[in-house]
């Protein structure tokens, strides 16, 4: 896929020059590309919790967000819970859709494609026999995830397919959900 100079009349609100500049900077100074993302989660009650993100490490130093952001998670009443927020698995689906959508906008900007609207619908299949411990052969997580994009833009169907393909190629969350990651959980 050839990089094209962004068409100046196209504005999806993505600063592609800044992103390409960041890539060049990281090629020259790989240490600057070493990031550590952080989140803190506090139990509220029952299966409800609140996660706060307010900073991360990157570009060689600690970075602060403009304000702390909080995300609450809970479970629906069918799980005998209080239903005060999305379930964690829905947050994962949300993260995947947000990441792919951000990628679609960035790649579209870089390729000179003006977006009018982008809608991503996500479905995740899960057999509860896994999380409930009813069947050891069933995994806890999704057995499949489907993402469907509806995009209105000045582009052919092939160009849109290529846009969505490239977005997957460069997506952190797509990589996180499709590939294994070593996870270390400790007790302080």
């Amino acid at each position, binding site marked *: *896929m*050839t*990089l*094209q100079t962004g068409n100046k009349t196209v504005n999806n609100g993505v600063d592609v020059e800044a992103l390409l500049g960041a890539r060049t900077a990281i090629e020259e100074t*790989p240490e600057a590309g070493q990031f550590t993302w952080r989140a803190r989660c506090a139990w509220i009650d029952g299966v409800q919790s609140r996660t706060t993100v307010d900073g991360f490490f990157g570009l060689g130093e600690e970075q602060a967000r403009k304000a702390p952001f909080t995300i609450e998670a809970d479970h629906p009443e069918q799980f005998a819970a209080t239903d005060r927020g999305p379930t964690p698995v829905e947050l994962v689906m949300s993260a995947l859709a947000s990441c792919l959508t951000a990628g679609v906008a960035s790649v579209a900007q870089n390729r000179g494609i003006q977006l009018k609207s982008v809608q991503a619908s996500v479905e995740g299949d899960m057999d509860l026999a896994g999380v409930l411990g009813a069947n050891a052969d069933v995994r806890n997580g999704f057995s*499949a995830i489907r993402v469907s994009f509806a995009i209105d833009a000045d582009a052919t169907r*092939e160009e849109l*397919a*290529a846009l969505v*393909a*490239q977005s*997957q*190629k460069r997506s952190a969350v*797509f*990589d996180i*959900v*499709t*590939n*294994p990651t070593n996870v270390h959980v400790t007790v302080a």
Partner: protein
Amino acid sequence: MKSVTTVIVGAGQSGLAMSRALTNRGVDHLVLDRGAVANAWRTERWDSLRLLTPNWANGLPGVPYGGPDPHGYMAVSELVARFDDYARRIDAPIAGRTEVSRITGMDGGFRLRTNRGPIGCRSLVLATGACAKAHVPELSGAVPPAIFQTTPAAYKRPDDLPQGGVLIVGASASGVQLAREIQASGRQVMLAVGWHVRLPRTYRGRDIEWWLDAIGVLDERFDAVDDLERVRRTPSPQLIGGSEPVDLNALQDHGIQIVGRLVDIRDDRALFSGGLANVCMSADLKMNRLLDTIDAWIRDRDLEDIVPPPTRHEPTRLPQVPVLARKLADGGVRSVVWATGYRPDFSYLDVPVLDRRGRLRHAGGVAAIPGLYAMGLTFMRRRRSHQISGVSDDAADLATHLRAFLDGRAGIAA
């Protein structure tokens, strides 16, 4: 210490082409090879291999293919015979069985340590090419010890492998070709597929290489593409020197199981990426985009009436539920073939001209140290640089630059 104006390391197509170009420019030189002419072709390729490019594309500088089958794909044995003949014809000053173990800089040039004693030279051409060693990922260390592991550089024929299941990692030219013949030998093959390039062998009545040549893709220059690093990482296409298709649909028709990119091995379990659908769809999209480009080229020249009409291939079929994990030893896998690409090998180079990833710093084959040149690297000067048909123009350009360097003239633009 023996001394010569220029040393060429490697007597493959790149080294021979450079030898001829230097002879034509009156540059005294020596071609070193650890073995004989076309050593890697002789010793590090599998028995059934035929060239991916048709014979008409495999001439050497000054000696076009003149054999009886211009549209065939020659076996490696024929290629070796042709290279031997070419070396004699151009009277290349070859020192065989000369292995270079270290190259250092010295006043006014370079010093080579070899098994036949040291050699000094003013300028140096590294012609060991893009495929000097088979790349094996670190992950190979996690394969259970009972499982036989090999690479396309060591593999010769299916019977080199134990009976039983085979995991082939990588679905570029080597991987798909080996998958086909190993499956046909009665061993069940699982093929791990990452980013790949799908190409049809023929299109609209011509070999795909004919079209790539005609539309000018192969002559695109290194300084005319937007993202050279990425283009240089482009894997070899899923092609074979022959008429049988080796795309993923054809391989699945033969019973080969395709899975996503191998991402980890934990205990005895191989884990595969869940992104198989995207790499397949991307390859289909890129193939169709190239075919669209060919169609446009035909249309622009009003050739529609004299070539067959356009066709498109069935999109890559995916397994209903691609496998994400597979037990290796306990799952009947007896061997793993790492078809994970080739890399140049400059480990003998003790000159500060490699980047932090061990790659030669160069612009179009002119290295970042005066007097040092490369040949045969991927997209070194042109898209065809690593092909046999790429050595002619590259050798002429770089020999001219080298001659100017020796004469103390400012080198021509790289």
